[in-house]
């Protein structure tokens, strides 16, 4: 009973954080709000019986990706101190987004209405990290390898794109 209550509470927090993240003019604040929303999601994951994922969510997602964001924001100094950036978009822009949200919700309701999932909802279930690791490296061993390749490609790509103008120019006339 408490779990359901916790779920709704955390859902609300997540939603609020995301909304705040979106409408912030300063990207740093929005990243912080995003981290808050990720934490609440991690807790929901935990509620839903996925402790491993919850932990990973916090470590990988909040820890790595958001930090990267902050790093880039700081590097590019896009903070709204320079007056050029326009004021936060007014009602004119968010109107259609609301309409979009409504349509999406209506769509999901309709889909749910079409073939209703069994009424009793998400059971109380708990997947221990052991089973998680076991299936991960048993059935999805190949997937793990591919993901690792993919991550290394991403690293190389990021490095190449990230090279500054000067070094690339020097490299071209060298080769």
């Amino acid at each position: 009973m408490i779990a359901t209550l916790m779920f709704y509470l955390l859902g609300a927090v997540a939603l609020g954080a995301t909304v705040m993240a979106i409408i912030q003019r300063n990207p740093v604040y929005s990243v912080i709000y995003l981290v808050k929303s990720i934490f609440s999601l991690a807790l929901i994951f935990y509620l839903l019986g996925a402790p491993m994922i919850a932990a990973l969510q916090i470590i990988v997602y909040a820890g790595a990706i958001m930090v990267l964001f902050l790093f880039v924001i700081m590097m590019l100094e896009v903070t709204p101190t320079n007056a050029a950036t326009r004021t936060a978009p007014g009602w004119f822009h968010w109107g259609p987004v609301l309409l979009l949200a409504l349509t999406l919700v209506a769509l999901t309701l309709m889909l749910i209405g079409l073939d209703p999932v069994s009424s009793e909802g998400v059971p109380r279930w708990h997947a221990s990290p052991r089973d998680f690791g076991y299936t991960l490296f048993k059935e999805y061993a190949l997937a793990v390898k591919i993901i690792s390749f993919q991550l290394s490609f991403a690293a190389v790509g990021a490095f190449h794109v990230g090279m500054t103008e000067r070094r690339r120019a020097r490299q071209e006339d060298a080769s």
Partner: protein
Amino acid sequence: MDILLILILLLPLAGGVINACFGSRMPQPVPVFIACGAVIGSFLACLGSLTLAAGDGYRLVLFTWLKSGNFQADIGLLYDPLAAIMTLMVTGVASLIHLYAAGYMEDEPDQVRFFALLNLFVFAMLTIVLADNLLLLFLGWEGVGFCSYGLIGFWYRKTENADAGRKAFIVTRIGDLFFAVALLWLFALFGTISIEGINAQVSGLEVTTVTMISLLLLFGACGKSAQVPLMSWLADAMAGPTPVSALIHAATMVTAGVYLLCRMFPLVSLSSTAMAAIALVGIVTALYAATCALAQNEIKRVLAYSTMSQVGYMFLAVGLGSVSAAMFHLLTHAFFKALLFMTAGCLINLAGHENDIRRMGGMRQRSPLVFWLFLAGLLCLAGAPLTSGFFSKDLILATAFAHGDPFHLGLYGLGVMVAGLTSFYCFRLAYLVFAGDFRGDELPHEPSALMLWPLYPLAILGLTAGLLNLPHLFSGGSWLSGWLGRTQDVLHLSISIEYLLIGTAIAVFVLGWLLAALRYRKYSERQPSLVGEFLLNGWRVDDLFDLLLVRPFKKIGRFCSQGVEAGLIEGVLNGAARGCTDLGMRLRGLADGKVSAYLQGLVWGFVLIVGWFLLRALV
């Protein structure tokens, strides 16, 4: 016997083609010999085969020209008395004119083209005369039109000559249209276009169709013979060399219309309204031309208008129902008018290529011989007693009088008046040209002997041709009516009326002479009066036609080419093309590189589709 008949037609054609194709390659005199030889040969062939034409004539079919479905037109010759007389006249006068032209055109560089066209003209004229079916006659009909176009516009360097040629060609072609429609109608009615075939079955038709067809034939004849509605081209046709005027606009082409009506007489004579129309057209033209001739200044234009009025007389004769009177006047007119034109050519040379009679005068001293020849022609034209003109014109007037009813008596009265006018302008011409002293300033250019020799036979024929159809008053046998097999044309009037008619004719002739003598004995420079101006321009008919036909034609033409062609059709096409390109440009605006715009498009699309399904599901 067939060979002679074919030769009549073939020789001029051969002469024309040889001259046209190889004339310029042959040494100077050879083309002239070929041309004259061809026509004289044709004349002899005609003489040779004259006996064939006795009775109801001789038929000869060479080959089928066009055969499709039940339409059959073949190259066939019909050599009956009417055709024989006409061929004799055409080839005779043509050979004399060829001899004259040999002299007249001596120093002309383009001689070969002239003689080629002259020969082709004679060939086309003979095709009209000898054709046994209407299509072949139509071929000759248009061939004559083309040759006159070429010959009138012979000195093409000056555009007005070429324009005169074109005007003649187009106006005669308007006439040809009516003739073509008549031809089509006759074929549709009888299934055949042979002249005799039609004349045989003609009685079966009801009167209105006959009237319509005869009127069409009349208008066709008017085009070619320069009668009232389509006569404006003849005066301008004087732009051509004098032998051309002599041959085409005196003897042969203008009489083609009369010949057509005589050929189709059995058909035409069925409807009295058509006959009245022909007579009316004839007399109106005669009157119109005679008045115009009064005020002309150029010697050839006077003769041209006089030709128009004499042909009007012939139409009158046909309208009165007397083919032999028409043919009699046609023959006599051919002789003395050819004579007049040729002597006029000599006079022009004598006056140093001066056309205007106001600047000529006293030509009698320059060349008495030409004076006497010209006078002989003038006397015949004016209708001096005992000359051929007198007899043929008197026969026509007598036929008009013989009908007796008021309409024909009116025609007779007008005819007498026109005769008076004719003698007036004849002697006006004589006094202006011969009396007094020479007013021009050019040196005389002596006409060569070759130009003078052909004139003598014509003068003699002109004076004595009356014997051909002497009325019984003068103990004549009306030979021509008998020869044409139309004895019903011979008039049987009481002696007193005969003398009365002859008396009036002589009185009118003398009256005309006296008036002309009074007016023009001593030449005095007179300001052309308003009426004179009006008559000079042929009652301003040209401007009328220009206003009624030429200008609207050009306007519609401009409307068609600018308005419809450039505006509508090109407009529609270019408009469509421009519309596509504009649409393309606008669509291009959509892909303007703004990422957010693309995303918006994506989302809106998504929302619309999902919304549509939601609505359908909900509703």
